[in-house]
């Protein structure tokens, strides 16, 4: 059943030009980051690490969380049109499958975004004249970024399914970015999804995930958030009447 729901979600996103959005924001962040890196090579001397600090700062701290918010709002957008909620909720599928299918689709799309970002980072480094090899930490940053991205998706999906407006969940997502940044500065970043992304992708400090204990804590907190938010969202969908 879940598989059918996932393919239905894929079908709904067909012709939505979602790929344009998925490409624009990483391209802008890499362009700005690479430009900044190129102009300040005298100060930024740690090659690939310095480049990551520049492109990652714009991408991981600001663009990626907002891109997640926009993607989730887009995935939930059709339901809010033409009384489609009535159709969706009367379909012979469990409510949990509807939510999980959306979350899976968001996860797949975010995986593509992360891979695309990596390709851009690699090309940006080569154009800037950096010699290989790439830092061994890059796969870890990307995977942890994706894990935190899925956690944020669960939250954004819950908001987008509840709020009919397209823009409001995106606005809340942006406010959460700054709230998360504040928590990161106060060194309690492990306890908020948006600051988990900052930590996981190593955008402000590339040494923050050194020990395996911290990695385990990172994954555990993400899983905990994912489960709690998903259960809450599914519970709400089951109990509350839809506004079609």
């Amino acid at each position, binding site marked *: 059943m879940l598989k059918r729901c996932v393919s239905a979600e894929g079908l709904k996103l067909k012709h*939505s*030009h*979602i790929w*344009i*959005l998925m490409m*624009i*924001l990483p391209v*802008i*962040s890499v362009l*700005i980051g690479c*430009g*900044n890196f190129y*102009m300040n090579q005298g100060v930024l001397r740690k090659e690939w690490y310095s480049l990551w600090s520049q492109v990652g700062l*714009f991408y991981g701290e*600001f*663009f990626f969380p*907002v*891109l997640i918010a*926009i993607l989730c*709002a*887009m995935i939930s*957008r059709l339901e*809010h*049109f033409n009384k489609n909620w009535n159709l969706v909720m009367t379909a012979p599928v469990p409510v949990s499958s509807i939510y999980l299918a959306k979350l899976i689709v968001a996860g797949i799309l975010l995986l593509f975004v992360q891979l695309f970002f990596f390709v851009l980072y690699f090309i940006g480094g080569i154009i800037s004249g950096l010699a290989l090899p790439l830092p061994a930490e890059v796969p870890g940053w990307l995977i942890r970024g994706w894990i935190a991205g899925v956690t944020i998706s669960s939250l954004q999906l819950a908001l987008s399914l509840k709020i*009919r*407006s*397209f*823009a*409001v969940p*995106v*606005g809340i997502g*942006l*406010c959460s970015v*700054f*709230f998360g940044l*504040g928590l990161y500065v106060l060194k309690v970043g492990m306890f908020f999804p948006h600051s988990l992304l900052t930590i996981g992708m190593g955008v402000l400090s590339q040494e923050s995930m050194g020990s395996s204990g911290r990695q385990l804590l990172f994954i555990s907190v993400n899983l905990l958030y994912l489960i709690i938010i998903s259960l809450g969202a599914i519970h709400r969908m089951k109990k509350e009447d839809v506004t079609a």
Partner: protein
Amino acid sequence: MKEVILEFYKLRHKHLLLMITGFLGVEILWAFMAIAMSISRNPGAGGWEPLLLMLSSMNGLFIPILTAVCVSRICDMEHKGNTWKLLSSLSVKRSRLYFAKFVCAAGFLCYIFLLQTGAIWLFGSVNRFPQPVPFVLLFRSFMGSFLTSLVVAALQQWISLAVKNQAFALCLGMAGGFLGLAADLFPEGIRRIFIWSYFTGLSPVVQTYTGETMIFHIRKAVEILPLMGVAAVMGVLLFWLGNMHISYKDI
């Protein structure tokens, strides 16, 4: 006038004012925290100039996104309720409806900057800045930010009404926000193409470096006036193009 009142009437249950106040609160809180930390480290660092400059830079990031959200909400209700067709069948020109939506957005933006100016005044008074309240600087800062946001709103309204899917309008707002944030990294010629860079461009305060010392410099009004003229022309052009496109577009 009736059209404008009706636009506000349609938004009465949308909590738009509450949302933009909350959003602006995050920006103001962030800026004030940064300035307060700077003052606690170096008591001589406090003053109206750093505060105004800090908020101009933060406006470059926040206001494009806030404008995108605000304009998207004003325009999206016509897409959602399929009411643009209904409105077009009234004996009111579509250009007047377009103008009413713009005035409505401008009203919200004016509220944002009035609130921001009031908050700056309050923060400076509470922290007992040594200089008296610089009303002229506050007014010039208000005018610069408000003018830039109007141009951004003209662009956002065009996109929000032309493209049903609001993801594109919000994506543009997002990209604009980051161009506004990173604008000072670009050369002057390139920077001036992007309207989002005018939040810092029209700020009455700029910072310069003498060796390792940062100095805040107040620009004369005549230095900013040509740039304000460019922004105004861009705004009129964007509004006119958007109005023409939407008015003659087949629904």
